[in-house]
C-alpha cells in the first residue's frame, strides 16, 4: 500500500512539472520516500547507540561545580506531607516562643540561575532569602505561603489532584490574582525540595500529541494514530502515564497549533513515521515532562519546527535547557539534544520565501535576538549562532505559515520531506 501511494506521488509530481514547478519549488529535488526513510533510520540508530554507550546521563552530583546547586526530586505524597508537617511544627514553636516566624525560601531570581554547559540546562544556585512575617514587604507573601502549605497538606491527606486555578479559587480574597498563588506554589515546591507535580497541583492541559505512539493514561491505552485530527491532549499528571510504545523514527516538535493541524490532517506521521507534539507556544510543564519521558523511554531524535524569529528559538531553549522560572526542576523538565529543523533564517533564501511573507523585525525583536546571542545555550551550538546572527543581520523574520505561500500543503509535501532528505538540522 505504501508503494502505491509513493507511485501516485511520483506521477503527480511529473504531471505538474510544467507549472507545478513554479507553485511548489524544489519539489523535483525530492527523492523517493524510501531514501529519506533510510536516512532517518540511520539518525535514530545513531541516537540509540549513543544512548547505550553513554549509559548514564550526567547529574549535578557528578559534576564538581564551584557553587552548590539546588535540585528537587519527585517525592511521594507522604514525604511531602512529612515535610510540610515538620515545617509547620517548627513555625508553631517559633510563634509560641514569641519570635514570630519566617520561611527560608530559595531565591529564584535571575542572579541565582546558572547555565551548566556539561548538563546543557539551567540550574538553580543555592542562595535563599528569608521571608519573615513581621516585615511590611514580605508579610503578604509569607501569609500566602502558609496558606498554600496548608492547602497542599490537605491534598496530601485526601490524595487528590487539583489545578492551579482550583488552588487559586480556594482563597481568592487572599491571593488576589492567580499569578501570586502560582509564584508561591513554585516557591513552596522549591522550599520542600520536590517537583511541582509531587504537590499534586497541575496546570490545565495545553499540549497535544498525535502520531505513532501508544501509551497508557490512568490505565487506559491510547493509540495516538487513532485520535482524529485534534490529537490527544497531553495529560497533566505525568505520573499516571506509562507503557509507551512506538514505531516512530523521530519526534517532531511544532511551535504552533496551525502547523500542527496541517501535519495532523495530512497524516504526515503515516508517510514518515513520527510523533508530533505541540504546546501551542511556550510549553507548559506537562508537555515538557511528556517530551522528556518519550525521549528517554523511546530513545528517538527530537526535531523542532519553530518560527524563524527570536521567540521560536526561545521556545526551543525552554524545551532544551529549561526556563528560569522552573530551573529548580530542570533535571526533569529538559530534553537535551533537540535538533533545529526549521524554519531557520537561512531557509528564507534557500527556499525562496517571497518577500511579502517575511516580516521586518521590530526593535524589540532585534533586541531579544541580540540578547539571545549572548546566552550560553545558543553559544554552545555554532550552527545556531550563525543562524541567529543572520536573522539579526537581515532583520527579517518569518512564521511557519510563510511556507503556505506555495500552497497550504507545501509544508508537508515538499518542505519537511526535503529537509529530512537533506538531513538539514542543527
Amino acid at each position: 500500500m505504501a508503494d502505491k501511494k509513493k507511485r501516485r506521488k511520483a506521477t503527480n509530481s511529473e504531471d505538474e512539472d510544467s507549472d507545478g514547478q513554479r507553485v511548489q519549488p524544489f519539489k523535483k529535488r525530492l527523492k523517493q520516500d524510501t531514501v529519506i526513510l533510510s536516512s532517518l533510520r540511520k539518525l535514530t540508530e545513531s541516537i540509540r547507540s549513543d544512548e547505550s554507550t553513554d549509559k548514564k546521563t550526567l547529574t549535578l552530583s557528578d559534576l564538581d561545580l564551584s557553587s552548590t546547586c539546588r535540585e528537587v526530586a519527585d517525592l511521594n505524597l507522604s514525604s511531602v506531607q512529612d515535610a510540610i508537617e515538620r515545617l509547620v511544627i517548627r513555625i508553631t514553636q517559633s510563634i509560641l516562643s514569641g519570635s514570630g516566624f519566617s520561611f527560608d525560601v530559595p531565591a529564584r531570581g535571575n542572579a541565582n540561575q546558572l547555565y551548566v554547559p556539561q548538563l546543557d540546562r539551567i540550574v538553580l544556585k543555592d542562595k535563599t532569602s528569608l521571608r519573615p512575617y513581621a516585615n511590611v514587604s514580605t508579610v503578604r507573601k509569607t501569609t500566602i505561603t502558609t496558606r498554600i502549605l496548608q492547602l497542599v497538606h490537605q491534598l496530601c491527606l485526601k490524595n487528590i489532584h487539583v489545578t492551579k486555578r482550583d488552588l487559586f479559587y480556594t482563597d481568592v480574597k487572599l491571593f488576589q490574582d492567580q499569578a501570586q498563588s502560582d509564584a508561591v506554589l513554585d516557591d513552596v515546591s522549591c522550599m520542600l525540595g520536590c517537583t511541582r507535580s509531587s504537590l499534586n497541583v497541575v496546570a490545565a492541559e495545553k499540549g497535544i500529541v498525535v502520531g505513532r505512539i501508544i501509551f497508557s493514561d490512568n490505565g487506559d491505552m491510547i493509540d495516538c494514530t487513532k485520535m482524529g485530527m485534534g490529537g490527544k491532549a497531553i495529560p497533566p499528571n505525568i505520573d499516571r502515564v506509562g507503557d509507551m510504545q512506538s514505531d516512530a523514527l523521530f519526534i517532531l516538535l511544532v511551535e504552533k497549533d496551525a502547523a500542527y493541524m496541517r501535519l495532523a490532517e495530512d497524516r504526515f506521521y503515516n508517510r514518515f513515521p513520527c510523533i508530533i507534539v505541540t504546546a501551542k507556544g511556550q510549553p507548559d510543564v506537562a508537555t515538557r515532562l511528556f517530551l522528556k519521558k518519550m525521549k528517554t523511554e523511546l530513545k528517538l531524535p527530537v526535531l523542532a519546527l519553530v518560527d524563524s524569529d527570536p521567540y521560536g528559538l526561545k521556545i526551543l531553549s525552554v524545551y532544551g535547557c529549561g526556563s528560569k522560572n522552573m530551573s529548580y526542576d530542570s533535571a526533569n523538565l529538559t530534553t537535551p539534544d533537540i535538533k533545529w529543523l526549521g524554519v531557520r533564517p537561512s531557509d528564507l533564501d534557500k527556499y525562496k520565501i517571497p518577500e511579502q511573507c517575511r516580516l521586518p523585525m521590530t526593535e524589540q525583536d532585534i533586541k531579544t535576538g541580540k540578547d539571545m546571542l549572548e546566552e550560553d545555550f545558543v553559544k554552545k551550538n555554532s550552527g545556531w549562532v550563525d543562524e541567529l546572527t543572520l536573522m539579526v543581520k537581515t532583520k527579517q523574520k518569518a512564521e511557519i505559515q510563510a511556507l503556505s505561500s506555495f500552497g497550504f500543503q507545501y509544508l508537508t509535501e515538499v518542505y519537511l520531506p526535503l529537509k529530512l532528505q537533506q538531513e538539514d538540522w542543527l
Partner: protein
Amino acid sequence: MDSGGSDESLVEPKKGKSKTPRKAKESVLKQKEFSMDSGGSDESPVEPKKGKSKTPRKAKESVLKQKSPAEFFAENKNIAGFDNPGKSLYTTVRELVENSLDSAESISELPIIEVTIEEIGKGKFNSMIGLIDRERIDEELYGDFETAKAREKRVAKEARDQEIQAKNAAVGKKVKEPSAPKGMKGRGEASFFRVTCKDNGRGMPHDDIPNMFGRVLSGTKYGLKQTRGKFGLGAKMALIWSKMSTGLPIEISSSIKGQNYISFCRLDIDIHRNIPHIHLHEKKESTEAWHGAEIQVVIEGNWTTYRSKILHYLRQMAVITPYAQFLFKFVSDASDKNATIKFSRRTDVMPPVPFETKYHPSAVDLLLIKRLIAETSKKTLLQFLQHEFVNIRKNHAERLIGEMGPDFDPKMAVKSLTSQQIVRIHQLFRQAKFDDPSGDCLSPAGEYNLRLGIVKELHPDMVATYSGSPQVFEGHPFIVEAGVSLGGKDVKQGLNIFRFANRIPLLFEQGADVVTRTALKRISWNTYKINQTQDKIGVFVSIVSTKIPFKGTGKEYIGDDISEIASAVKYSIRQCCVQLKSKIVKKIQAREQQERKRNLSKYIPNATGAIYDVLKEMAQLHGSKRKHYEGEEAEILKKVSARVITKDTLQEKLAQHVEHVDYEMAMEFATQSGVSEEPRDDIYIQALEGANNFIDFRSPIFVFRLFQ
C-alpha cells in the same frame, strides 16, 4: 524714496499672505518706516491702488489686485485666533490682557489688570446701534420656524414622554427631570459682549493712539526681543472682529504718568485702506493720578462654550505672573451667571525687562542680511559684521572676511555689496562656527516666581521647580523652566499640563505639543514614585526665547520635532521629578510607619488560621493513631488536642511579636530621621504703603533689595 517705499508696501502685504508670518512681520517694519517718512499722514500711498481693486467687475480674467493687510487678516481671521465667536471672545480677552501686562512691565510697575465681560442682550444691542427691535411678521422666513409637520411630531413625542413618565412614576422608578424642550437656535441668536480691560501700564501718547489701534501690522514690539505680543495684531484684530460682527467702534482711554489729562478716543478701522477712522479724539480733565489704558470693545462671542477656556487662561496667567493682580468680572442680565474672580498678588518681584538683542549669524537669512545692510549706520563691512551681529568680535570679523574671498575687503563699503556677495556672506554664516548666543537678553519667569505662582493658584502638596541654562536653537537662545506639582485643589487626577511660551499660557492644540508629548511619553513617572494615572500631577513648562518655533497657523503649540527643545524640556521635568522623588520617598516612609502595624496585623488571622488547620489535622491523625509522631511534635500535638494551643493563642503570640517589631522599627526610624518638622511655608504680606525706593540685586535664587 517715496515711490520706492510705495512699491515695497505694495508687494509686501502679498508676501505676508503666502509666506510665513515672520515675513509678514518684516513687511511691517517697512511700512512703519514709511509712515514715519510721510509724517504719519493718513494720506497713505496705498490708497490710490485700492481704487484699482474696486474696479468694475467686468474684467473677470486675472486682474491684478492688492489687498491691504487689514483686509487680509479680516479674511483669514483664524491666523490670529479668531476662528469663531467663542474663540474670538477668548482671543480678545487674551490679547488685551497681554498688552496690559507688557505695558505695565515696560515701566516696571506691578501690574493691576481688570477685565470685565458684559453680556449684552439682543434688545440692548439693537438699541445701542440704534436699531428698533422688530417683531417677526413672516414667521416662515426664519430658520427656527416650526412647520405643521414638525409640530405634530413634537406634540406626539411630548405625549409619549409624558406617558412613559407617568408609568415610571407609577412603578416608583426614579423620575428623571423632564428635559426642557431645546429651543432651536438659529444663527440669528448671536450673543454680544462688551469686553473692557483696564491696566496701570505706561499708557499711550495722545497723538499715537489712532495709529496704534487703527493700523494692522504696526506696533512697538518689533525687533529681536522676547515679547508676548506677536506682530502687532492683537488689539487690531479685536477691532476688526468687532467691526465684522457688531460694527461698533473701539473706545480707548489712556493716560501717561504725570499727565494731567486723559486721552479718550473712539475709532474704528478702514479695512480696505488699513488706516484708522477716528470718531472722537479728545483730552479729558483728570483728577485722579491714574496712568495706563482702558480699552473697551463690543464683539460677538460665546460665553457658555468658552467660559472655561477664559478662566483657565486667567488662572494660568496668574501662575506665570504671580506679581500681577487680576480682577475678572462677568456681568449679565441673569444675576446667577455673574461672577467675580480675583487672582491676587503673591510677590512683588518682577522678572527684569527683556532687552532687544542683535541677530546671531546663524539665525539670519538672505532677506534679513539685506535689510540689516539697508538699515545699518555702519560704513564698512568690518564694522557691519562687528556691530550688527552678536558673537562676532573684531579679529573674528577680519578672519571671516578673509575667508569670504579676494572680492571682499574689511574696508569696503557695506552698502556696495552685490547680491552675489551677500549670498557668499550668507553661505559663510551657515558653515562657520560661532559661539552660542547668550541668554542674557531673555527674561524667564524665574524659578522663584514660577514656584510662587504654582503654590498660589494650585495649593499643591508638593512642588519642585527647575530653571535650565540658556540653550540655542537655530541661533536663537531659549530657556526652559519647569515645575512639577503633586496634589492641590481643582487639579484632576493624572497629568495636568500647563504650557507657557514667552510667559503666556498656551491652551489649544495640546496634543501635538512638545511638552505634552514629553510628559506623556518620555518621562517614566514610576521611577520617581509618581503614579501617572492616580496622582494629581501638575506639569508646568515655560519656554522663553527671542523666537518661539510655533507650529500651525494658530501659534498655539510648539512642535515636537526640535530635538534641542525636546531634550531641554525632558531634562527640566526630570530635574523636578528628582527633587520630588526624595520628598515622596520620605513621605511614603512616614506613611509606612503609620500603616506598618495595621498591615502586619491584617494578615495574622490568615496565617495563624492556616497553621492551626494543619496542626489540627495532625492532631487528629495522631489521636486516631493513623500516624505516629514523636518527641516535640507529639508534645505540641497533645497540647493542640487538649486545646492548650488554640488558634487564639497563636494569634495572640504573633500579635505580640508584631507589636514588638513595630516598636523597634519606629525607634529605629526616629533615631535615623531625627525629629523633623514639616517645612515651613513663607507667608506673603502685601506692602501697605506706596513704593519704597530701592535697588534690586538679582540672582537666580534670591533678590537682594537695598532700600534707600
